[in-house]
């Protein structure tokens, strides 16, 4: 069931991940109280995990 990876699909996947990453990083910045470098690094990591989960969840639900 492996799909062929076309440049277009890669671009779309990257765009989706980046969009989620940006939104979740913003959410992290809203949640925390004081902003410093470590907070930003941890927030970026957490947002990346969230973005991966978001994409995995969407694919798991629509893929039949």
């Amino acid at each position, binding site marked *: 069931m492996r799909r062929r990876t076309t440049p277009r699909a890669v671009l779309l996947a990257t765009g989706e991940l980046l969009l989620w990453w940006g939104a979740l990083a913003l959410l992290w910045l*809203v*949640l925390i109280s004081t902003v410093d470098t470590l907070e930003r690094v941890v927030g970026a990591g957490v947002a990346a995990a969230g973005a991966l989960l978001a994409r995995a969840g969407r694919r798991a639900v629509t893929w039949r």
Partner: protein
Amino acid sequence: MNGWILAATVELGGGGAAALWGVTTGPTARRVVAQNLTTAALCPALLLLAQGYGRPAYVDLALLLALLGPVGTLVFARLLHEDLEGRRPSAWGLTYAVAGVGAAVVIALCAVTGPGRAMVKLLVIGALLIGGNLIASRALSGGFRGVLGG
């Protein structure tokens, strides 16, 4: 004496007593609706308490309730949908009234907080709370009709 705490007491007493009455009496369909509205009624109370005690960190409790309360209702909507079949439990008037109270509380707190990240956090909580509640109400009134067994 603190106006915020007074408001929280009123909200807790009124909303809590109504929720307790709704969830312990009547058919299952009504109880589920009452369980859903408990989240919507008590989350603003938690926000008011955080403001009344002057501790912004307590807002996390409201955030968690706004996130997980609708999830709890979805659990009941999904796993009780056989009991709720043909009942279409809903109380849209009440749902919108409670959502309006939540929105009013969030707006009042935003006005006090002033622009900044704390205000955006309050708005996020308000959006999660109201959106989650409306979706959970939708799920109760027939959102899981196509679910069989699983």
